[in-house]
């Protein structure tokens, strides 16, 4: 899809206004606690203009750019998962009657907010689609995607075929171009409601120069990925290697902290918990985020099936790259690199996969 329109930087807030007037609650990147996280956006002043991120294994720093790009960074610790699958959901609540049964079961009737996601990246659109396939969702956010202007230090969407250019799954997609004195957004329209919103925003037709500039941004991003992962036969590779000594090696480093599962846009595991009040007359059932890295996760009568760190790291990685295929028909990984960046000890899923592949005597296809 190529850009048909251009919105000037000066008119960017008109886009936000158009969304607000249509009742959308805009959520997008903001700067908080030295990280770029998703929160309410009222105007472009809320965006991390002029900031970029430096990411590596176990490392995330923000630095000033030498321009005022609104989207001059990769992805931060938040993903859109928190909206598709909120961290803590009350499923129902009820009283407990004299017979120990549930009385007056109340299920929440609220509609999900009408979100507009501003700044969703291609990897994130794939992540949302993958997650949706697993859990299903009524969420139908208006998506203003941003085609990445720079690859992050831990990004490998090219390897996973999930970017850096989104070719669908959005209502509008923007490519930010800063060139000489110019600062504008090349706009691709991805849906009828996207086209409709655009009519309310000052814009002009895109010229070849605009399209070329956008294409150059895309190519530059694709060529500067921080990581690579060879996905050739990766399911079978991991299925063959459940007893590989590499799992012991990574287990020596892994803290089983579960950060990776929190930041991953597709990790979906939840725990279902009933809580009662002190006199046992009222009960609530919640579904909240859980992680396969906890010992309790695999608890059955007699203990946990996965007590060792080795087995829990292996479960996470083989699920993400291999068994997800058999369970849900796609890979679980979108190459966003968050698990690498936010691992306190910098464990790198691409490096682990490479180590196992290379030990079989097949050199890694990307090395």
């Amino acid at each position, binding site marked *: 899809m190529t850009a048909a329109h251009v919105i000037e930087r000066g008119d960017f807030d008109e886009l936000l206004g158009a969304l607000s007037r249509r009742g959308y609650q805009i959520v997008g990147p903001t700067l908080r606690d030295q990280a770029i996280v998703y929160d309410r956006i009222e105007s472009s002043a809320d965006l991390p203009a002029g900031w970029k991120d430096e990411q590596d294994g176990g490392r995330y720093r923000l630095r000033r750019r030498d321009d005022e790009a609104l989207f001059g960074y990769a992805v931060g610790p938040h993903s859109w998962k928190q909206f598709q699958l909120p961290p803590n959901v009350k499923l129902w609540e009820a009283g407990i009657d004299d017979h120990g049964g549930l009385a007056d079961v109340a299920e929440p009737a609220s509609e999900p907010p009408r979100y507009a996601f501003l700044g969703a990246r291609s990897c994130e659109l794939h992540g949302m689609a993958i997650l949706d396939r697993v859990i299903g969702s009524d969420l139908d956010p208006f998506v203003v995607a941003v085609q990445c202007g720079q690859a992050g230090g831990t990004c490998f969407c090219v390897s996973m075929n999930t970017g850096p250019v989104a070719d669908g799954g959005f209502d509008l997609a923007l490519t930010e171009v800063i060139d000489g004195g110019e600062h504008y957004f090349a706009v691709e329209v991805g849906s009828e409601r996207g086209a409709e919103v655009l009519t309310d925003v000052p814009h002009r037709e895109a010229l070849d120069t605009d399209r070329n500039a956008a294409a150059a941004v895309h190519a530059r991003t694709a060529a500067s990925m921080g990581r690579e992962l060879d996905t050739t036969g990766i399911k079978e590779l991991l299925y063959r290697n459940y007893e590989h000594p590499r799992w012991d090696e990574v287990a020596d480093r892994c803290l089983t902290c579960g950060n990776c599962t929190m930041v991953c846009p597709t990790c979906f595991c939840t725990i279902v918990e009933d809580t009662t009040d002190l006199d046992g007359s009222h009960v609530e059932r919640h579904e909240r985020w859980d992680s396969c890295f906890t010992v309790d996760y695999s608890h059955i009568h007699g203990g946990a099936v996965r*007590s060792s760190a080795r087995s829990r790291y292996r479960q996470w990685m083989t699920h993400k790259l291999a068994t997800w295929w058999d369970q849900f028909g796609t890979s679980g990984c979108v190459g966003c690199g968050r698990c690498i960046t936010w691992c306190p000890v910098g464990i790198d899923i691409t490096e682990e996969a490479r180590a196992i592949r290379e030990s079989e005597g097949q050199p890694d296809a990307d090395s």
Partner: protein
Amino acid sequence: MRTVEQEIADSGLFAGLEPSQFEFIAGCARFERVDAGTLLLREGEHADEFFLIRHGAVALELHAPTGPLVIQTLGDGEVVGWSWLFAPYTWHMDGRAVEPCSLVSFDAACLRGKVEQDHELGYQLMTRFAANLIDRLQATRFQLIDVYGRAPAGA
């Protein structure tokens, strides 16, 4: 530095064999060291090696979903693994080194082949292992009656 022959001879396991038989067995053997945690035997896998423990301890285990159940532990001078001698030649349990072990490992496939030709050698090995098996069976039965849990009759 002791040789494999010396080690096997001292174990008494093959005492009374003809020198040529003994030599053949020693020829199928070598020293091996393993770290604690190493699985020497894996349930269901083909039994192609068995072991004599020089120093160390090996636990015979059955793996349950929540972890291994230790059936018995074997120590210095004991043999780990019998199923290599009996069809279908697959291990019935796991055998895990519970501490670093110094072992003599025997090439079971090689010995099996020899035993099929040399029935006298086969007989000698069978009688030794049978005695050991009866000993272990008796111990296992004793474990089974759970003497600690039951009041003895008449108590």
